[in-house]
């Protein structure tokens, strides 16, 4: 499978994605707008509550090409953060009290400066989360050492596993991904990840493999823990259940499979104002591979830069301005506020 960009799919143009979402010429033009929903719930202006996390996308290159990927990542994507931009992130961190750095991609480990970057962030005493797709650990010999590297730097590992069986995992993430993920999880367990008392956190992420919503997180976590232990002897800490947002490759899937209208309608009908108060843009800033700033990773992939035209780059990092900004919202935001809500840490309501 190729990325939308490499296959010249019109949805690789973020303008077209936004046009579809705002249904300029579609049958569901009548769906209410996200800002109207916020307004009637008394949640405008929509501003951050705090800024405790810097989520940094170090590049769109990935060894996988998952069908639902909101980054449109893949082996054919060459956008990669340079060491120069990483240094700008470090400078920004040094002058702030942001406690957590959440590294994502693509497969962040494929950035040639990944290890240097993690070590430098740790020197600043900040917590590092790496969104590791698991298969990268076994994709090539040079990555086999990642579990030990993570351990040495006390990195929190967050990894996607859409189900505890191969069929549902591979249908979303590609043939053979499940088996490789299981091998990688065992390697992480071996160095202590997910083991009680080790202090090494291994969290898993569940995304639905299709046009349906995630199950309630708590029951699903119990089921995953039971099944992964029984079947493979694998342990982990927490499971985050995340809703797929209707952007990029998941948007393409929804449209091609004929599920777009009903999925959007369901997202809108299950809008939850409590979830809306805890969405991740309320406490984070997302940095793109080229250093531009966004309210979240989803806005980044829709090329919706933060609402500060003169200081929207990490080089101009100004915490006071960022805290005071208005968050850029659009129709995809309904994906964060549906039902129990969804953030990169799972349910939020």
């Amino acid at each position, binding site marked *: 499978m190729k990325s939308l960009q490499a296959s010249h799919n019109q949805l690789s143009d973020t303008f077209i994605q936004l046009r579809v979402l705002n249904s300029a010429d579609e049958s569901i033009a009548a769906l209410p707008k996200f800002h109207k929903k916020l307004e009637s719930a008394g949640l405008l202006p929509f501003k951050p509550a705090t800024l405790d996390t810097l989520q940094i996308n170090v590049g769109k290159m990935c060894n996988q090409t998952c069908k639902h990927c909101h980054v449109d990542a893949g082996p054919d994507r060459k956008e990669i953060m340079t060491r120069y931009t990483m240094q700008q992130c470090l400078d920004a961190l040094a002058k702030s009290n942001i406690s957590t750095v959440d590294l994502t991609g693509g497969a962040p480990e494929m950035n040639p400066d990944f290890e240097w970057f993690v070590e430098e962030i740790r020197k600043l005493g900040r917590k590092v989360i790496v969104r590791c797709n698991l298969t990268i650990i076994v994709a090539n010999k040079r990555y086999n050492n990642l579990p030990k590297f993570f351990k040495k730097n006390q990195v929190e590992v967050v990894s996607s596993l859409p189900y505890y*069986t191969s069929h549902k995992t591979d249908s979303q993430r590609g043939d053979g991904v499940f088996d490789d993920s299981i091998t990688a999880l065992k390697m992480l367990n071996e160095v202590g990840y997910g083991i009680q008392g080790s202090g090494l956190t291994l969290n898993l992420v569940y995304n639905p493999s299709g046009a349906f919503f995630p199950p309630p997180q708590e029951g699903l976590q119990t089921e995953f823990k039971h099944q992964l232990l029984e079947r493979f002897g694998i342990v982990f800490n927490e499971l985050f259940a995340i809703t797929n947002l209707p952007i990029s490759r998941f948007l393409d899937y929804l449209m091609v499979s004929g599920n777009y209208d009903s999925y959007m309608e369901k997202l809108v009908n299950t809008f939850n104002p409590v979830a809306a108060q805890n969405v991740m843009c309320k406490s984070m800033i997302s940095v793109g591979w080229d250093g531009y700033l966004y309210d979240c990773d989803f806005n980044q992939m829709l090329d919706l830069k933060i609402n500060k035209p003169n200081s929207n780059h990490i080089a101009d990092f100004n915490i006071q301005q960022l805290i005071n900004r208005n968050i850029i919202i659009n129709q995809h935001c309904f994906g964060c506020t549906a039902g129990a809500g969804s953030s990169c840490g799972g349910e939020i309501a």
Partner: protein
Amino acid sequence: MNTYYNPEDLKKFGNISEYQPELAKKFFDYYGEVFKDGALTAREKSLIALAVAHTVQCPYCIDAYSTDCLEKGSNEEQMMEALHVAAAIRGGSSLVHGVQMMNKVKELSM
């Protein structure tokens, strides 16, 4: 094309209250209570609903509970096993009446 069943009608289930609000309210309140976690989990109840939906062959319920089972964390194998339970009971309930047939045949035969 005109058909008796229209998928869009599923979303209008609540409209039955237009003609009889009190009974509809009682029914929907009861329905909501039934499907909550109890001695059985909501996931188990959804699998039972899926099996029953196939027994009563209601396209609306099959649509709704196929989605609901996935959204409660069940997988395809579990869902199909639930249907086999329904099928086994359907088949079994036909066949167990074979004893009645045999009784009658014996009554009539020399």
